């Protein structure tokens, strides 16, 4: 079989036929062929054809390249970015079969991007141009003699440290301040009392509308951008850029298991229903098993996701795989789920006891330098494992930290509150992150959290890092 673009087109047409029959709903799809060096470059810059420069991407590049060159890890077969039209890269060095498999897999992602609710606010038609304008703006600042590379890096370093401290659910509308003032006022009004005429008139305490922020604010970067009056315009813009770039990743992080599982589930069904020659079929099965193999001790999102999707379908339709000629209740259930769930809800709803046992899930904790199994998927343990998993998937691995006061102790210190859920912060990381926060805020930054079971205040100010533990 030739390796020409025409051959890929032929196979793509056959795959796309199945895609439509199965009812997947995709953006127009574009494939770009690349070699492994290009792929390393795309990996470092999150797939974007154009991305603003920062040394951290150079670090990623070097790491991937070193690992690849030394054979520690291979490169992903595919990379697809959430844009409209969806852009995916195919490695030309891969075998023809692998390219076909990749094409089928990409359509799964494409459908997911288009239909899952978490991606609803990502305006995919502008993804590529957004990253491109980010790159242009950052380069302009670097070239501006009054700013320069050093200052840009100084701000970007700090902004990167805080970038993921943002709202996680982009489908929830952010309430503008004016509306928030109205709500606050309404909340403070006494409850309407039908017997008000005979009751003592309750006292009305007006809300403290001078407090900034009115409600604890999760978008730390944006809050500082809008609240610190001493920031220069270009610094504000850099913060906007970093924030917007991060927003692109939030839905992807939130749906990693679902998304990879979905794409794997459909590439499997599509490839199984494609009239492939025998040798290609065997190669496909080898690759498929390679991608979906369990990672003992770790978690392979492809594997976990694939198994959950499969069990959803089978719980309705039995062992029979989806028939591309027929719309079934099982298929509808799949489509509904891919639209309204994210990893945390997906696992909560569909990870059953049996599945947990089949997957051999276990929970581990660090104890004296070792990871020790703390729960296994038996009658008592599986729910605990599921809860732990729910907390650690998606943005659950990022601590929730909110700005609660921009005038803490009356000297315009910034007060951050960590929403403690039993998991403690890494002190080393917190110290540095606070340092960066202080860099942008320009004044003392205080973080309330819990360390070693005691509520603790970590602070970073002119005099460096301090911790104050409450006894």
């Amino acid at each position, binding site marked *: 079989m030739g390796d020409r673009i025409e051959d890929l087109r032929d196979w793509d047409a056959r795959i796309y036929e199945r895609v439509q029959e199965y009812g997947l709903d995709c953006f127009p799809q574009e494939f770009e*062929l690349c070699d492994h060096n290009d792929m390393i470059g795309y990996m470092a*810059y999150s797939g974007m054809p154009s991305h603003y420069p920062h040394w951290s991407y*150079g670090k990623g590049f070097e790491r991937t390249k070193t690992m690849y060159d030394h054979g520690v890890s291979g490169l992903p077969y595919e990379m697809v970015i959430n844009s409209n039209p969806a852009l995916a890269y195919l490695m030309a060095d891969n075998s023809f079969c692998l390219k076909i498999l990749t094409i089928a897999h990409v359509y799964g992602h494409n459908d997911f991007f288009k239909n899952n609710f978490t991606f609803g606010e990502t305006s995919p038609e502008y993804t590529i141009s957004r990253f491109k304008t980010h790159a242009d703006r950052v380069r302009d600042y670097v070239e501006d003699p009054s700013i320069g590379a050093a200052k840009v890096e100084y701000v970007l370093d700090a902004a990167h440290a805080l970038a993921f401290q943002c709202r996680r659910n982009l489908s929830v509308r952010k309430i503008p301040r004016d509306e928030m003032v109205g709500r606050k006022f309404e909340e403070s009004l006494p409850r309407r009392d039908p017997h008000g005429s005979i009751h003592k008139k309750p006292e009305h305490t007006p809300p403290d509308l001078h407090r900034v922020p009115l409600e604890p604010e999760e978008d730390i970067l944006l809050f500082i951008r809008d609240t610190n009056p001493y920031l220069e315009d270009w610094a504000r813009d850099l913060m906007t850029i970093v924030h917007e770039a991060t927003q692109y990743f939030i839905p992807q992080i939130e749906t990693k298991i679902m998304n990879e599982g979905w794409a794997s589930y459909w590439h499997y069904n599509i490839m199984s229903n494609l009239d492939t020659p025998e040798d290609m079929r065997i190669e496909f099965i080898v690759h498929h098993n390679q991608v979906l193999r369990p990672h*003992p001790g*770790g*978690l392979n999102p492809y594997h976990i996701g694939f198994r959950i999707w499969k069990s959803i379908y089978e719980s309705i339709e039995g062992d029979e795989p989806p028939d591309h000629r027929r719309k079934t209740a099982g298929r509808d259930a799949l489509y509904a789920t891919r639209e309204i769930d994210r990893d945390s809800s997906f696992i909560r709803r569909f990870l059953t006891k049996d599945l947990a046992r089949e997957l051999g899930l276990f929970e581990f904790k660090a104890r004296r330098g070792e990871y020790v199994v703390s729960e296994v998927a038996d009658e008592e343990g599986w729910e605990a494992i599921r809860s732990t998993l729910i907390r650690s998937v998606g943005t659950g691995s990022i601590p929730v930290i909110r700005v609660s006061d921009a005038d803490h102790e009356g000297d315009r210190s910034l007060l951050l509150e*960590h929403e403690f859920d039993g998991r*403690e912060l890494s002190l080393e*990381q917190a110290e540095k992150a606070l340092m960066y926060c202080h860099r942008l805020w320009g004044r003392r930054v205080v973080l309330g959290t819990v360390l070693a079971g005691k509520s603790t205040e970590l602070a970073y100010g002119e005099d460096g890092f301090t911790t104050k533990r409450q006894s």
Partner: protein
Amino acid sequence: MSAVFRPRRETTADRGAGDRQRHREKVRSSILDNIADIIAEESIIGRSGDDIIKVPIRGVKEFKFSYGDNTAGVGEGAGEDVKKGDVVGQQSPQRGKGNAGEAGNEAGSDYYETDVTLSDLIDMMFEDLDLPDLERKEMRTIESLRQSKRHGYRKVGIRVRLDKKRTILAKMRRQRGASAAARTGAMPAAAAAPTPGRAARHSDGGARIPFSQRDLRYKHRTLEVHEESNAVVICIMDTSGSMDTVKKYLARSFFFLLYQFVLRRYESVEVVFVAHDIDAHEVDEDRFFHKGEAGGTFVSSGYRKALEIIADRYHPQLWNIYAFHCSDGDNFGSDTPAALKAARELCEASNLFGYGEIKPRGAGFYGSSLLDSFKQINEENFQTVLIERKEDIWPSFKTFLNRETTDN
């Protein structure tokens, strides 16, 4: 509607080159930041330049708020026999990531290591010192090679360097010129042979024209002098009973740096070890660092020995002399005036002379300290440093070199 396929875009652009460059710079500066710690590591001293050493790097890590150690994780693929309490992996604080196949917890301090060769490291260290260009400093040089080389031809010279071939060519050229001139009738004076009869005979074939003084060509030779900058490092150490292993180790680190520094500035470098207690001896390296002596200390004896060696083998006009003395400052009081005098003489002879007093903390306080006495020496190329622990070595070495690098 099926997909659009685009062939690979041929591009010569090296993606991310700038970012990688910047990242490497950061790695490098991170090494520089930690250099004092690295120097203080016992293991690098006494290694050869090609040895690869692992350097822990901090600072190129990116920081974010994240969960720490008390966070539980979930893994898959446990077999039937996995029970609560089984160990499934090791936390590896030195590495950023858990080992493949084990619990993939990315937490843990992200120290990572990079490999550099010792000589690279030392280059970086000295770069860090911002040394001025070597050319600007006057260095004492010696002629290492003197040879004569051919350098063209001349019309005067001594008989043995006569170049016969060129002389004949010159004569023939003149001859041709003369006959041509004879034919055209323009007879220049030069062609007018000593005897006209002979010339006539030649023009109708075979007349000989004798060599003239002007035909002679001599090979010319010039002298070429290679100048070499030579340096000697004179390590003087107190090996009296009070110098224990720790102190010797600190001294050794200092000598190591000094030697590396000098090695990078001069073409050939020699090292001399002078060990002294009451008496001084020139010894070899092994003996210098490992053999303990006993008894008291006469610092002056070491200096005298050094001066003797200089007078003997390393004439200050030809050699750049770097002398350094390490001691714990415990000298017999009566010897101090003599030591001061000898130290002044050493200053005169050497490019740089230093005294390092090694007093590890908690080693007890000795009444006498040479540091005080040496305050009387005001020579510009003299420097004293105090070394209390291994972390002091690099800073004090920098101080020491400041004497060398500020124009003296």
